[in-house]
């Protein structure tokens, strides 16, 4: 078992030091680079949390939510896909590839039954991706969409 501070805490301290002590002392390109580094720390923190949740899901004996949703869309059993691909991560990649190919050849075109479920799934995974990489963009998108501006 690791001693404190944990990874999350380390990243948070590094990001705060960068923003409060380093950035104000810099100008121009160096300042932009330091701000980009701060952003990297935020993304790493968000990804750690997501990975920890996924790990807890797997450890509890449940299938990962993403794998279950993918398998559901493709009419496959998640456990079979996981065994065939040699793990949850590989199975998600494999089924995503199958899904991409099925979308391209029109298997999910509306008004078929799969279309609504597919759209919900795509919105969910894309939303999760943006939440990890740029939560501010998500807030801004929600705001302008509510105001009806596109």
């Amino acid at each position, binding site marked *: 078992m690791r001693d404190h501070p944990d990874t999350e805490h380390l990243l948070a301290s590094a990001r705060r030091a960068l923003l409060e002590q380093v950035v104000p002392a810099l100008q121009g390109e160096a300042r932009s680079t330091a701000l980009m580094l701060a952003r990297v720390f935020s993304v790493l923190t968000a990804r750690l949390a997501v990975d920890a949740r996924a790990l807890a899901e797997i450890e509890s004996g449940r299938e990962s939510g993403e794998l279950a949703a993918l398998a559901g869309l493709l009419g496959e059993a998640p456990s079979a896909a996981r065994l065939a691909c040699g793990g949850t991560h590989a199975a998600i990649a494999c089924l995503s590839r199958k899904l991409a190919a099925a*979308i391209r050849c029109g298997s999910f075109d509306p008004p078929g039954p799969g279309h609504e479920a597919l759209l919900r799934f795509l919105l969910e995974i894309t939303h999760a991706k943006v939440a990890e990489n740029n939560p501010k963009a998500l807030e801004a998108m929600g705001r302008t969409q509510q105001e009806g*501006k596109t």
Partner: protein
Amino acid sequence: MELEPERARAPLERFLAKALGADACRIGEMTRLAGGTVQDNWFVELQAGASGAPPRRLVLRTGRVVGVNDSLPAEHEYAVLCAAARTGVRVPQPVAVCGDPEVIGQPFFVMSFVDGESRPWKLQQTPEVMAVGDAILEEIGAELARLQTITPDGRDELGCLKPPPRDVAREAIADIRAYLDRHDHPHPAIEYALRWLERHAPAPGPVVLCHGDFRLGNVMIADGKLTSILDWELTRWGDPYESMAWFCMRFFRFARPDLVAGGLGSRAALLRGWQAVSGRVPDPAAIRYWDIMANTRWATISLQQVGRQVFGGENSLELALVGLATGEMELEALSLIAQADARSGLAQA
């Protein structure tokens, strides 16, 4: 290979003297300009001929080692710049081009330096600019319409560009799919957008010159006016609505997502300027279609930028962060599709 100004200075002076028909040229200041992840720009102060004349302020533009796949080599970008200048589009004045990589280590061209600001975040922080945002957008729309008077017919000097597509939308879809097929990660959301674009593709229409990266960051603004359109390395033949959609993409609105046209003002202003010069009434369905195409294309380009970083050996934090934005364009495309579908559902009901 990066340009080494001290090594380049003497051969550049000889080249420019010959190109400008001057007895001799002397380069004073030579400094790298910020911006440009694809091309490199250098400010060059040039004393040509008699020492009494005021020095000319120029920009030297070269390519970087690993370019984006579709970026034009210097000679071809120069040909485009010349065509735009001849048509009366506001661009930096072309001065000279050198396709010989031996002269300064890589092909390059030289154009006039244009004063002003093109960084969107800076423009957005300038109240005097934001106060006249819609007026600037009208100018930008008008310039775009002028640029679009350049069509493939009888344009031998633009033979360097890829041949004009017969069906812009369907060829763009095929290109993006071909790119995705070379990419190891699957992208179901991009595939979904492409399938929608395929099912709703418009009948092939007129093909015009398309800047290829028409956004606020590529226009120069001084004293509340548009002074020139920059960075022509991604120019290609395309659909008239593509550039307007690109300009209005959410990703390029930066701190002002509420201002649809480049984070500067309204799309209506951009369209007003475009309509005034082109004489065409904007087609809302085409605008919706090309908005979705723009986001889908940019999602794919951002993947390509990460490809440069991860596989192309370019260790740039900036390129890595561009890739983080792929999901934003995917989400925007999905939401624009949902809106378009809801609209057509209403129309059918």
